[in-house]
């Protein structure tokens, strides 16, 4: 039948070509596969293609649990966005990670209403949201001896639910979770030999989650070498002196003596390190501790290809274990940086051994699979509370401040070093050393020099024992060590490098193509002794930016009002230091009018990053062609703000920030952007002087009269999403009024309430980003 139609059409000579030439084979050859297992199918990445039943959106809105968020990546829109979520559940007994007999007590897990900040272990996973009853049907590649690995959970306090796995229509596994076991992940491995279709079904009354299901093919070959990135928070480069294990590692690999962070605090520094460029260029600057809704939306709309997402799409497990909420999507202070599973271990002291134990357990369990493991040790970060025994062990290196806080800080570094050593030992024991790239670095330093102590008035923040809002070498210089025996050359690089170079180096070591146009560059040429011109380091912070090049450091503040420790108030918008003559940066040459100043200003301006343009949801209003001409007049009003993008064949006059006067002739098109995308849109239109009824306006990508029942032409709440169209509607030929919007890539995110801000204040004080009482 099909054949007949096509032959007839072509025979009839009415076939128009829709063919395109074959795509050129521009994909680079994949990296060699290593012995091991392969992740053959990651279900969360295919959630959009699955056939899903169940009232997900309603159940999600009804779920009163704070540590949850819709996963922003994957391009799922509308109600389909509710399929993949990021859910953090507390380990039932945090003490299991502690050390027996340790002086510090731990509290039992509980759930904070807004912030997930109790001392506990939170296991966060990209998960399929599965309220009962629901079914996800996936077509999967048939894998002989394939194993389905996943975790299941019901929401804290939820009723019982039964989880059922069907393979090719046969029930192959089932497990019920009673209410008493709610709120924690239960790991499972299920054989699904050669199944072509897998159904994940939930029945009962509870709200279930399928935590990061993957299909594993045994002995298929791992996609490539593993990567472990160990971040030791707030680690200054001079602290290396009290870290024998890190020194040993540095001697076996690539050690960068002059590594400069890309940002002065953790989240932007992580973004730069995982994205190979400055945080602003990637999509989220260092300026705001809590990204505003539109910032957050923009970041996800840009959808930066961060390392975890890049490697996960190549079949890696992307797991983070640490004490750090900046890479999580559900706290307002964090951003989802693309890790599929995050173990967040919240304890100021016991975190270090617990992170190590969890890391070693991960290595033992996943030694045969390709993985990206990010470990985040918080030890040297404020508060400096090392286990007491480390205080006696450390000797401050020459030039390091000698006060008690400085000693406590160094003891924390030594504490982290000892546990880092255990991870290194585990790699050797598991014979993973030669197939695992190990990267150890500090994300930024800390101010201990009283000469750099002042209060930044714009932020009401002191700089001593802090970071984030000043940019001296104390903060900028961090350790950077990379080791992979047999692959990464043993070398000591004294030239200046930046943490933006970490991601390109990792890709280079893995034999993967580097992304063109990023600021970061691979360090391997330097390691091999290739001489090159100096890499300029640009650093972003809150209220502060700096450029470091040619032996000079130039620092610029957006708001230069400072209060010195003696109470004097000054305004210092820029500072300049000659690093060769003044390594401690005590003599600001900017005020002296040094001739270098102009050059550094020029360099600063040249290196200043610009934010990417995020795809915006453009609203289109179009008049379809008709046999006779029409004039359409009226207004568009929104409770957000409206800006004009394009007006072809139309007169568009802004009356104020919220209102446009419109006059369209014939097949005219008006394109505007409304911010926020959730804002209400109201239209009052006439055609040739006669009012246009809501039923005459065709809405969305299918051009349907969805407002037929409405009294007025108003789109608000859920109805705003009716505008979203994957493509422009067919115009038709009847002079119809078409209204649609390019889809925004992110579904509505919860707004930050005033109450949340209070919580954030608490949070930042606890974490040392704010002083008590401020």
């Amino acid at each position, binding site marked *: 039948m*099909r054949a007949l139609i096509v032959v007839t059409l072509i025979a009839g000579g009415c076939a128009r070509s829709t063919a395109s*030439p074959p*795509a050129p084979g521009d994909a680079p050859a994949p990296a060699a596969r290593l012995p091991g297992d392969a992740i053959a199918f990651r279900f969360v990445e295919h959630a959009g293609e699955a056939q899903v039943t169940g009232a997900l959106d309603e159940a999600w809105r009804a779920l009163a649990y704070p540590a949850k968020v819709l996963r922003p990546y994957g391009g799922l829109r509308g109600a389909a966005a509710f399929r993949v979520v990021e859910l953090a559940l507390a380990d039932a007994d945090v003490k299991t990670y502690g050390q027996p007999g340790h002086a510090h007590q731990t509290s039992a897990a509980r759930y904070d209403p807004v912030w997930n900040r109790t001392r506990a272990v939170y296991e966060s996973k990209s998960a399929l949201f599965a309220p009962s009853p629901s079914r996800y049907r996936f077509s999967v590649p048939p894998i002989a001896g394939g194993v389905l690995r996943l975790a299941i959970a019901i929401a804290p306090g939820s009723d019982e639910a039964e989880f059922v796995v069907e393979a090719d229509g046969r029930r192959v596994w089932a497990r019920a979770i009673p209410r008493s076991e709610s709120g924690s992940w239960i790991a499972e491995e299920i054989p699904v030999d050669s199944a072509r279709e897998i159904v994940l079904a939930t029945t009962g009354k509870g709200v279930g989650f399928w935590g990061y299901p993957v299909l594993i093919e045994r002995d298929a070959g791992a996609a490539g070498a593993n990567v472990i990135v160990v971040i030791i928070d707030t680690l200054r480069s001079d602290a290396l002196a009290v870290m024998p294990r890190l020194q040993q590692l540095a001697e076996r690999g690539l050690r960068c003596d002059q590594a400069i962070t890309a940002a002065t605090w953790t989240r932007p520094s992580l973004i730069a390190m995982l994205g190979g460029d400055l945080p602003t260029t990637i999509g989220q600057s260092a300026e705001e501790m809590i990204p505003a809704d539109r910032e957050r939306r923009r970041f996800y709309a840009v959808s930066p290809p961060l390392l975890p997402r890049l490697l996960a799409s190549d079949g890696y497990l992307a797991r983070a274990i640490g004490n750090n909420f900046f890479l999580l999507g559900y706290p307002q202070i964090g951003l989802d940086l693309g890790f599929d599973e995050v173990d967040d271990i919240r304890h100021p002291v016991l975190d270090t051994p617990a992170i190590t134990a969890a890391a070693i357990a991960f290595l033992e369990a996943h030694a045969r699979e390709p993985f990206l493991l990010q470990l985040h040790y918080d030890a040297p970060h404020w508060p400096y509370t090392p286990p007491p025994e480390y205080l006696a062990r450390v000797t401050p290196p020459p030039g390091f401040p000698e006060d008690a806080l400085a000693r406590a800080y160094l003891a924390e570094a030594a504490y982290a070093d000892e546990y880092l050593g255990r991870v290194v030992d585990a790699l050797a024991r598991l014979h993973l050393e030669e197939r695992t790239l190990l990267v150890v670095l500090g994300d930024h330093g800390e101010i201990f020099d009283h000469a750099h102590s002042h209060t930044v008035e714009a932020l009401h923040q002191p700089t001593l024992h802090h970071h984030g809002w000043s940019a001296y070498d104390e903060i900028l210089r961090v350790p950077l060590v990379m080791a992979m025996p047999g692959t990464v050359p043993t070398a000591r690089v004294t030239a200046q490098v930046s943490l933006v170079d970490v991601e390109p180096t990792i890709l280079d070591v893995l034999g993967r193509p580097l992304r063109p146009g990023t600021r970061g560059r691979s360090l391997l040429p330097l390691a091999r002794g290739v001489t090159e011109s100096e890499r300029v380091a640009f650093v972003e912070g809150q209220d502060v930016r700096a450029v470091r090049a040619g032996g000079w450091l130039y620092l610029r503040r957006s708001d230069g009002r400072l209060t010195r420790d003696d109470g004097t108030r000054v305004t210092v918008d820029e500072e300049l230091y000659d690093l060769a003559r003044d390594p401690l940066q005590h003599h600001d040459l900017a005020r002296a009018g040094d001739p270098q100043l102009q050059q550094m200003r020029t360099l600063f301006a040249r290196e200043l990053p610009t934010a990417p343009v995020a795809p915006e949801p453009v609203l289109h209003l179009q008049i379809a062609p008709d046999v006779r001409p029409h004039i359409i007049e009226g207004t568009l009003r929104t409770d957000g703000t409206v800006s004009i993008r394009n007006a072809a064949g139309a007169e568009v006059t802004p009356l104020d920030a919220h209102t446009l006067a419109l006059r369209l002739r014939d097949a005219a098109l008006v394109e505007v952007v409304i911010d926020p995308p959730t804002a209400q849109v109201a239209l009052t239109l006439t055609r040739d002087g006669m009012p246009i009824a809501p039923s005459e306006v065709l809405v969305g990508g299918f051009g349907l009269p969805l407002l037929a029942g409405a009294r007025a032409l108003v789109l608000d709440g859920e109805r705003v999403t009716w505008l979203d169209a994957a493509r422009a509607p*067919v115009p038709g030929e009847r002079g119809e009024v078409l209204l649609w919007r390019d889809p925004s890539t992110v579904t509505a995110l919860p707004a930050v309430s005033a109450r949340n801000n209070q919580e954030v204040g608490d949070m930042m004080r606890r974490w040392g980003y704010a002083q008590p009482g401020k």
Partner: protein
Amino acid sequence: MLSTIRSVVRRAVASGPGAGALVLSLFFLLDFVGASLEFMGFSDEKATSIIIHRYGARIVGEQLVILATYAVVGATLGAVGALSGCLWDWAQRGSGSRRRRMLRGVLAALLGHAYFFVRSLVHYPQLYSEAFFDRGGIRRTLMVAATNHLSLRLLDGIAALGLATALVAPAFSARGRVRIDWWIAHAAGALTRRPRLTAAAVALLLVGTGAAVYHRGHGHATRPNVLLIAVDSLRADRVFSADAARRFPTLARLASRGVRFREAHVTVPRTFPSFVTLLTGRFPHHHGIRHMFPTEAARKAIGPALPSTLHEGGYRTAVLSDYAGEIFSRTPLGFDDIRVPYFDMKTIIAQRSLQVHPNVLPYATSALGRLAFPAVDAMPERSDPALLADRAITEIDRLAGKPFFLTVFFSTAHFPYASPSPYYQRFTARAYAGPFRYQKPPLSTATVTPADAAQIRALYDGAVAATDDAIARLLRRLEDDGIARDTIVVLLADHGENLYDVDGRGMGHGDHLEGSSADHVPLVVVDPVHGLAPRDVPAIVRDVDLAPTLAALVGVNAPPGDGVDLGPLLRGERDGLGLDAFSETEFWFTSHGPGFEADERLPYPGITGATDLATDGDIFIKPEWQDTVVVAKHRSIRTERWKLIYRPTRRGVDWRLFDVVTDPDERRDVAAQHPDVVVELRRKLVAWMTSDGRTVMRGDFAVPE
């Protein structure tokens, strides 16, 4: 050197085969005279350049094969001429001159070709109607005269006479008779002189025959075989109506022996989605094939189907078809053997290459020619059901011995309703002078008069009759081989057909849901294994119920699906299962037509705008149109009493209700009189439409979220 070549050529031409080859090769050039100026059928310049760029070598290759075919046929015919000449020369004790030999070759080639050509034209006129009938004038007159006045038997008779004159007559000359007597005497002598050899030969012959009979007779299966006979576009009334027995005796006889589901309905009245629904037991929005141009990814994601579960249950599974069954070559449904034509851009190129050369068609479409021209199998004009029946018989011989599940899918009754001689004339009026003398091409823009409509129905019935006879042959063989008693035979159609029988409903299937001609199909289950008694089942059953029913009948796991086991109805334990049937329209090739006029549908581009060509030459609906095509579908629900139709338009959704008991032709919309029924059926239809997990209701409209 040149002179050597010249003399070789001269000698070759002067020989009979050489002269024959040369003459027929001239037809290769002749074909181009007056051929369509369109390049390979593509009039579009851009398409042409792409086709030449991508398939240029293939086009040249096809032309060379055609030229070679002419040469081989010409040489063969010339050789016959030469042989005949030799015999005559011998009989008359003469010797032909070089010139005579050449003339004999030419004459034999021309006469032989004339016979084959006219015979093929009478047998399969649809192949030639583009080159002759459609062009009008003398060509049309000659073709109509040939098909009206010549029969295959007459032509074969003339040919046999001619051949006998050419080859056998010399034997009866005086010299020939003497020679024959000598041979007979010598053969008898040889046999009597070697008695042992003779006995051995006779014994071998007997044993061989016996073995063959034994092999056929002992194909006892542990589980019943299942033979699924599917007839494309077969309407339920062509099997169940009162006069069916007269016109289509085999179908009627088969129905009289089985359980007759009188109200079987398919969900999508088009071949591809319908077969996937029938064999998976899942509704189209659950298996993902909702139109005939799915992407490769969608085809791969169909999921488990009846043939795969039967295979796991120890069955050999196979599907055989002519052109409309090409879908099976691209669709993983679990068949072990897929013997269907392949259809893609290369097939189109090959078919168009052939259609430029009507003179080669008699040879290209012959059994031998199809080895060189496999694209012929994918030609609708050449879907002779008798050929498919022969192939099915061979296949059953091959499969017997292990339980088998064989689907035989006859395409002939699908438009263009191109049936071979004599079927295309069986029900048609000789006096008919319209454009649809031999077939009804799809999408033809000609206005259809009542006489045309009657002709089209007669062509359709002719195609059904041809299929009826072919099925008779297949079933007879099943009986003769003793396989029938172990075999469950299922007769069904993938969809029905509108045949201009009700005003405003046009012709075809899948374009609208007005009336039930397209979604109402025959379903008959003949089960001698379980001894199911023949009976009528008037209750509604659906395509999705077939897979679970057959799986239960033979005792294998059913693929997970939406249907139910109809066992209780088969065994007569229950009268009905309270099932509701659902339907949806398929892809609209044109912007409007009967039942989907501009104000009765949501707009989207026609086939050239909405489809794209994959690098492997496969055609699929562009991703950006896939959702639009689905949103625009009309949908319906049918209960024992009512049918509710959902038609989304830009003026809102048009809901229409029909009382199928009092108004079986569905002519009176009674939605206004029965608002409560509308509400109830609408609720059920909405639940069905949204059961794919990604469709939601926005106002009255079902849209993907």
